[in-house]
């Protein structure tokens, strides 16, 4: 019996200790919870930096959390648990906007303000923040890819998941651009990588095996080009195959150096995180965001505000960056 009590006691102490460490102290002005698609990957770690910066400068209680797996079901659970705590606002990067409509409605009914990012089809949101026009971004990546490929050859595009709205928009933008050029041949489009570098690596290997004359890859999830680059490098095709995609220097850096990846495009998730929280704060203070407004962050100095899918609005910035080997040092993240 003693052993039992000891074990249970140890268990309680362990939980309490961990809880004490992670539980934030006294309540401050507004509580804004940022919920991302999946925690632990470089992209959203960078976003968390922005959230922390915002928390410091504004004095508000801003934190970031997210599911451990890239599964819409898990994100719903995290949101439901947060809603029970009744934060003032939720800033969410949805895994799949459609699946969150009901839970957002529940939050709104409880008086919680909803801000989203990368979800321009979301209905139950007040403002959806987009760093830029997704289709144009995708087309831009594809233009760079096309140029690298010499305007001809087989190419393919990866997405994190077929359900991911923004990834599909980028991919479609790229596909539309390539369609204008008959010498660009699209094969096996929209392979799913679940935002996982290993999966992208496996898929790229398969493509290379299936099409030995493949000339171009376009990635969507931040980890896609890392996986693709690794496969291209292993196959010794650095100079023969062009790889472009959304990613960060910290993820694709080493492949940009060797030439396995030729270029990346991105927007700074840190800034996006700050903007989400700022917009949430403004909403809580009763302010409106209007067309042409300056939100005080680089790339969002003259935002366009258009009607969204539901009653809310879409805030669009102009915050994309083209990065390759030559300028990657300027972006240390």
């Amino acid at each position, binding site marked *: 019996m003693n052993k*039992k009590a000891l*074990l*249970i006691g140890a*268990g*309680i102490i*362990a*939980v*309490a200790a*961990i*809880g*004490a460490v*992670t*539980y*934030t102290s006294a309540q401050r002005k507004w509580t804004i919870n940022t919920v991302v698609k999946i*925690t*632990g990957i470089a992209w959203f770690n960078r976003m968390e930096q922005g959230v922390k910066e915002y928390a410091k400068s504004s004095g508000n209680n801003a*934190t970031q*959390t*997210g*599911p*451990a*797996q890239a*599964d*819409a*079901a*898990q994100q*719903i*659970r*995290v949101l*439901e*648990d*947060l*809603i*029970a*705590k*009744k934060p003032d606002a939720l800033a969410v990067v949805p895994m*799949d906007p*459609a*699946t*969150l*409509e*009901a*839970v957002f409605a*529940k939050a709104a009914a*409880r008086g919680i303000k909803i801000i989203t990012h990368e979800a321009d089809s979301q209905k139950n949101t007040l403002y959806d923040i987009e760093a830029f026009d997704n289709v144009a971004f995708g087309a831009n990546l594809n233009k760079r890819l096309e140029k690298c490929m010499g305007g001809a050859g087989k190419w393919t595009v990866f997405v994190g*998941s*077929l*359900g991911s709205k923004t990834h*599909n928009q980028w991919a479609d933008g790229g596909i539309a651009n390539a369609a204008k050029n008959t010498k660009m041949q699209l094969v096996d489009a*929209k392979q*799913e990588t679940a935002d996982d570098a290993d999966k992208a690596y496996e898929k790229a290997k398969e493509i290379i095996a299936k099409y030995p004359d493949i000339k171009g890859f376009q990635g969507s999830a931040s980890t896609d080009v890392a996986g693709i680059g690794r496969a291209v490098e292993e196959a010794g095709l650095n100079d023969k195959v062009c790889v472009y995609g959304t990613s960060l220097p910290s993820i694709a850096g080493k492949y940009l150096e060797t030439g396995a990846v030729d270029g990346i495009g991105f927007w700074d998730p840190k800034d996006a995180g700050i903007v989400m929280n700022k917009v949430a704060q403004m909403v809580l203070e009763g302010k409106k965001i209007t067309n042409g407004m300056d939100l005080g962050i680089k790339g969002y100095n003259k935002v366009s505000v258009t009607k969204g899918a539901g009653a809310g609005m879409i805030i669009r910035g102009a915050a994309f960056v083209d990065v390759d080997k030559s300028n990657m040092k300027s972006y240390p993240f």
Partner: protein
Amino acid sequence: MLSDGHIRFLIIANGLILLVAALLSKGAFLDPYNFQSMATQLPEIGLLAIAIMLTMVSGNGGIDLSVISSANLSVIVAALVCKALFAGADSSAQAGWSFSVLFVVIALTVGTLCGLLNGLLVARAGYAPILATLGTQLLFLGVATVLTGGPAVILGDIAPLSSIGNGDLLGIPIPFLLFLAVSIGVSLMLSRTRFGFRLYLMGSNAKAAHFAGIQTATVTLVTYTIAGSLAALSGIISSTRSASAKADFGVSYLLIAILIAVMGGVNPSGGYGKILGLALAGVALQMLSSTLSFIGANDFLKDFMWGLLLLLSIGLTDSSLFKTKPKPAPS
């Protein structure tokens, strides 16, 4: 009875988790909304856990890895058919009811057929359950992905269908009531009917069951078919909660459902398992998960705590449920 110690452990664990949660959240955890929220999240996984439990009890290495895929496929087919039939229809209450009823019927039918396929592969073709359901898991996922092309099928807000996932009766969420009803139903079936009697014996020694005149193929077939139906019900709850049907929704649920079953006292070798244990295990895991979210802990911590709880349950109960061979009496 063997499982008494196990049930006792689970009750104590539940009590402790609740206590710790209340303390850490300075009482905020005990808000009725929070309980409602938890009561909404548990059922869809709980139903899958029951489905897996039944297959485990049937023995022969029984398991159903395809529950998520069949759940998704069921509601995808239902959603596509209903949307097609009711396209452009008026939004009257009557149309809403017709849509809802048809949706539920189609989803349950598809799920049952999925389960039937599993049953045929295991009982008639003789495949090992883990292999058969691994195959059907991918098969159903593939069909679902082809049908949807990838993105989710939007259901939208259709009364009274949406209330299955989002509504409540006297403050108790409807998913929870469904889970409760199914739990009671399955529990009665297992303990009070011939089917349950035969299922437990077959799981305990399939050869002896055959010799004793039990139609083992039929019992196996029925078991997997029921599992498919339960999966469909889980899918109905998930899809109405998220107002959409997706081919790859809830892929992370599978291992959690297995965890709930095993922690609830189901012996993976067959012949043992009680619904009460499963329900208590599910509640414990749900509360633990919500507690961690509540205090703002890292989501990875949840996996750690669940693993810890499972190991504690094995170590502290010393239950022979976790052993594969019974010990004969000394002579």
